């Protein structure tokens, strides 16, 4: 099958395995730090305190789990869409090693307190330099494969892949510019409001180029592969693609509404955030309309529900996001627990559901094995969705309550509640969030168990079946 076609799939296996490892670590750390917020005595300073563990959670999640599996699928998808073997399998193997060295040293250095403090760009400069090397190797390999392709037409997934490669490179280089003091300490090249504006141009577009474009590439490839019917509209996909990568870059300052960053930058960010609903929902509708006449597959095909729930959470996410980007609503809700609720609908709901389904689709193909247990896949799905919804809904209610209390005033204009009076009301919600996180963690364990059993299982796919 694949081996005959000569695709480099060994390295795909490696990236999938390691992204699973980092994914479990990320969710486990998420549970730990959610418990630390609810029970402060669980902080064990200096190494195991919330302030040091939280960046490890986000880095393991975004870069270990997210980017790790995107590397696997970019390599897998690109070879198939170009009908060409990966340009350099040897380079990809080195890339896998480098990737793991980087994630592991990220975890260790962050625990030791070596951090630059900027969200999702915490890693000190020597590791940041390694990441640049990693990304260049990866990009060259993918782009060279595309250039040497045998299939002339480039399918839309390749567009998102190329945009992500370029976008991440530009963002990462600019925001990580720093002045080293020693091997383990550096200062940002920018100061104050400049630094904040550069940071959130980076931070929000990391969402675009790491947590939107790559899962869309996967979605556009694996949904038709799973259902057996093509995407509804290529043209809608084209319009959505260009408007998405154009508009996203304007929106970073919606993280900085009401701060000293110039008002016009904030206003532009607000306007473009609202406009982003259009390209986002174009992808959502492209997914939905592709299901015309195929909705029965939601019951019958165990993969399809991951994609459709995933794209639905993407749709909800891209309605909620723009509304938070409006000044008035931001004034109310920003800095509260609403935001972690929002973020986790995107990461646990949209991105992870797409990655789960892609792994379920690819592992049987590249190992030539039947999936070990479909009932376990279904159990994994429902536990993941339940855990995520408990997490997000709890946090939305918590955010609204705290925002309301923080804004409450007495008749003489003084504040009705002290900060601590609002904080103590958050404890029950924090218990609820930890509960949702634990359910999600259990779902991850079931997922990993099923994949391991599939890989080690005896039930090979019958030779007559198409790969």
């Amino acid at each position, binding site marked *: 099958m694949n081996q005959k076609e000569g695709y480099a799939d060994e390295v795909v296996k490696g990236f999938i395995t390691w992204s699973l490892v980092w994914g479990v670590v990320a969710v486990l750390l998420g549970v730990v730090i959610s418990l630390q917020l609810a029970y*402060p005595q669980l*902080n064990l*300073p200096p190494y195991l*305190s*919330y302030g*040091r563990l*939280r*960046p490890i959670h986000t880095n393991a999640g975004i870069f270990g789990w997210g980017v790790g599996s995107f590397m696997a699928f970019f390599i897998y998808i690109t070879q198939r869409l170009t009908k060409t073997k990966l340009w350099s399998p040897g380079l990809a193997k080195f890339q896998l090693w480098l990737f793991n060295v980087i994630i592991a040293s990220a975890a260790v250095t962050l625990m030791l307190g*070596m*951090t*630059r*403090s900027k969200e999702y760009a915490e890693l000190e400069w020597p590791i940041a330099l390694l990441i640049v090397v990693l990304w260049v190797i990866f990009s060259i390999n993918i*782009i060279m494969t595309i*250039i040497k392709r045998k299939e002339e*037409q*480039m399918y839309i997934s390749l*567009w998102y892949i*190329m*945009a992500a490669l*370029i976008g991440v490179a*530009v963002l990462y280089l600019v925001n990580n510019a720093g*002045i080293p*003091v*020693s091997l383990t*300490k550096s*200062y*940002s090249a920018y*100061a*104050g*409001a*400049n*630094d*904040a*504006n550069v*940071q959130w*141009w980076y931070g929000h577009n990391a969402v675009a180029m790491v947590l939107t474009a790559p899962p869309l590439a996967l979605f556009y490839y694996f949904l038709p592969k799973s259902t057996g019917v093509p995407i509804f509209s290529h043209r809608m996909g084209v319009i959505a693609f260009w408007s998405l*990568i*154009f508009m996203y*870059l*304007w929106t*970073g300052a919606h993280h900085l509404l009401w*701060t*000293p*960053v110039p008002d016009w*930058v904030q206003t532009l960010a607000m306007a473009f955030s609202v406009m982003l609903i259009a390209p986002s929902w174009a992808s959502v509708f492209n997914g939905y309309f592709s299901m015309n006449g195929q909705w029965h597959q939601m019951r019958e095909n165990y993969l399809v529900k991951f994609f459709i729930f995933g794209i639905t959470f993407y749709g909800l996410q891209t309605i909620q996001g723009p509304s938070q980007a409006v000044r008035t609503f931001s*004034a109310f809700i920003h*800095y*509260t627990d609403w*935001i972690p609720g929002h973020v986790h609908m995107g990461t646990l709901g949209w991105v992870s559901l797409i990655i789960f389904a892609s792994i379920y689709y690819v592992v049987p193909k590249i190992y030539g094995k039947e999936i070990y247990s479909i009932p376990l896949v279904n159990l994994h799905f429902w536990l993941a969705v339940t855990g995520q919804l408990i997490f997000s809904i709890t946090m939305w209610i918590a955010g609204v309550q705290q925002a309301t209390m*923080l*804004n409450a*005033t*007495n008749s*003489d*204009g*003084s*504040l009705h509640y002290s*900060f*601590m009076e609002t*904080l103590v009301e958050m404890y029950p919600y924090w218990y609820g969030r930890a509960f949702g996180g634990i359910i999600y963690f259990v779902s991850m364990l079931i997922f990993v168990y099923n994949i391991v059993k599939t890989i080690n299982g005896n039930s090979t796919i019958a030779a007559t079946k198409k790969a």
Partner: protein
Amino acid sequence: MLEKKPVIFLFLATVVILIGTAVTMIAPFKWINDPKLKIAEVKPYTALQLEGRDIYIREGCNNCHTQTVRPLLADVERYGEYSKVGEFVYDQPHLWGSRRTGPDLARIGGKYPDAWHLKHMVDPQSMVPRSNMPKYAFLQQPLDTSLTERKMKTLKFPYTPEELAALKGKSELDAMVAYLQKLGSDIPWRKAAQAAVLGDLKNPFLDNKTVLPEGKAIYEKECAQCHGADLKGGVGRALADIDKPDTYIFKTVFGGIPAGGMPAFGDSLGKDRIWKVASFLKSRQAH
């Protein structure tokens, strides 16, 4: 046709990405660096403050505390004067944060005396019951000063050899408190806020015993951590035998004593509740 030309496609995608980047990331430098936005009173960090700031970064305090007061009623009343662009020119990196699990710290400087911070950092719950902040007792370890001079040089901050020599024997906690006390206090906003408050003063609850339980409850929540549950003092002075008129107590609680470390409670408690506390304190006078 674009779908068949990867190099042109990559070039176009880059251009499209750079348009928004140029307008919203590159252009704002010019606006933010406008010399008119400079604030003369804002000074670079001293060696001790900078070391404290680096510990703040190392411990990831920015994961729970923001450092920007927004020009919104609740923010300004709770934390103080809203933040100005010129106040952050020495912040590399910025530490504005994204989530207020704990309160904003942009104006924490001068709100509490050093003694309050020292006790609070070691055991937050002793000063703020039910707080979910981790204990930072381990910061009592000696400050590592091996990189201090290079740090000051890297950031081009002025320093003297005496200043560096004075770091000997300081703990990490000393540096952290020095940093916290600088935050937001370069501009004289506390004085300005204090001068604006008062009108005609008369205790509306004079001889009204029914408000005493509420006054006591407010005292226990807001004042006892520094003045003691039994009014015998601690970080703050003893209040058990305070021989001052109601209006003096009211003014002090409302506006605070910036030089003496007494925070202002006017915006957060309001006049009514402060008069109730004053009534409670008067009721506890020994004679």
